[in-house]
């Protein structure tokens, strides 16, 4: 399907010859990014809400998780998910699964902070007004506070998504054949680093720009004017 979209004749020789292999890598990149975005968003929402609501016991744990992950390089997070945790708990895992777990854990820590600061940016008077009309605390949160917080944090959340998309390249270090990993393998065989790396860089550039454009359009549509 992806092949059909590309003006193949315009591609450099080395790319054209290895196209199916590189496209399979690209598909893996998109898959990892999608898992990271969906899983990370759900976990980030949960952790952010727990910290905002100061849930006893859970809230300090959530804070600890956020601080530790935010202080650790992604590369180390992936190493820990691929080598350290399986060694500790005595299970085997594939590089792809370890990378997916690492991306979810990594990006959720950053998203949780965005969620929390978004929730805190909603003026308390609005919650009070909601309570005054007889809505319960949970209803006020669900109907008034959360929807506004989510709209406010679209820009930082999308910049995290873009960051994650780029960071999927790090999975190549633990042996995942996503776009970067596939490109390195092709290069090892063909040894044309200039053409191959330029093509890969351009691919990331286009996809990341598109993703941030989506974020900007969404924000333009949904942002709350006050």
């Amino acid at each position, binding site marked *: 399907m992806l092949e059909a979209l590309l003006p193949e004749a315009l591609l450099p020789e080395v790319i054209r010859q290895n196209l199916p292999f590189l496209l399979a890598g690209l598909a893996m990149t998109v898959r990892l990014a999608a898992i990271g975005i969906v899983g990370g968003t759900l976990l980030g929402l949960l952790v952010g809400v727990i910290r905002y609501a100061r849930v006893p016991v859970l809230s300090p744990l959530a804070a600890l998780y956020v601080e*530790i992950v*935010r*202080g*650790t*390089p*992604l*590369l*180390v997070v992936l*190493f*820990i998910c691929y*080598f*350290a*945790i399986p*060694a*500790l*708990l*005595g299970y085997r895992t594939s590089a792809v699964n370890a990378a997916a777990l690492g991306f979810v854990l990594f990006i959720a820590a*950053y998203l949780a*902070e*965005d969620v929390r*600061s978004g929730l805190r940016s909603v003026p308390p008077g609005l919650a009070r007004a909601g309570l005054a009309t007889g809505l319960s605390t949970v209803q006020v949160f669900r109907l008034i506070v959360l929807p506004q917080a989510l709209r406010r944090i679209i*820009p*930082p959340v999308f*910049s995290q998504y*873009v960051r994650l998309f*780029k*960071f*999927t*390249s*790090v999975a*190549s*270090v633990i042996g995942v054949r996503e776009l*970067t990993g596939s490109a*390195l393998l092709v*290069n090892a065989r063909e040894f044309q*680093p*200039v053409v191959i*790396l*330029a093509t*890969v*860089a351009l691919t*990331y*550039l286009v996809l*990341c*720009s598109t993703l*941030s454009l989506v974020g900007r359009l969404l924000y333009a549509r949904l942002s709350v004017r006050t």
Partner: protein
Amino acid sequence: MHYQFDWSQVWQHRDLIFDGLLVTVALSVASLVPTLIIGMLIGTLGASGSRAARTAAGLYVEGMRNVPLLIHMYVWYMALAFLRLPPFACAVLGLTLYSSAYVAELVRSGIGAVPRGQARAAAASGLRPWQALLLVVYPQALRIIAPSLASLASQLIKDSSLASVIAVAELSYQAGAIEGQTFRTFEVYITIAVLYLALVLLVSFAIDRIPGLRDAPSVGRIADA
């Protein structure tokens, strides 16, 4: 859990870990300085009145930060191999180009957050444009972006771990080497995770204590990079 902990092997290789830590610090400092300078210049261009300058700055920012850092590293190391740059220099170049785009964006939004009246008031009192920028706009913009700048500095330290893929012997690289010899996976990676965490905390602790930034007016953080 049946895992037998053995931290002694990590301790035996403490000299390697310490060497790695030094390289990580050196790499971070060597990259941070040009990152700040380039970021400041590009960011100022991005906030300038000239449309051409703004477009050029925008292209730099979008082009540099929408390519993964890992690719930046490989480009300097492999694609431009004929330059025969040492890996450390390649890593500095990659980190600088990538991070400066984030700094530029931050500086641009910081300048934008300083009320326009400030520059006008400076001009009205007879300051030249560069004086107004240096004496009135930058100091205020710096205070506004200080918290985000601090988190960018931490980000750069963590990002420097990717230099391990082009054989710069920093912390992550040494961790891989020790792990390869000892197979003490868990102990090794937890140790370096703690070291990175300590470095990052140290940096934010230090930045919090820079006088004049701590009592900065709370204009709020600008989009966390």
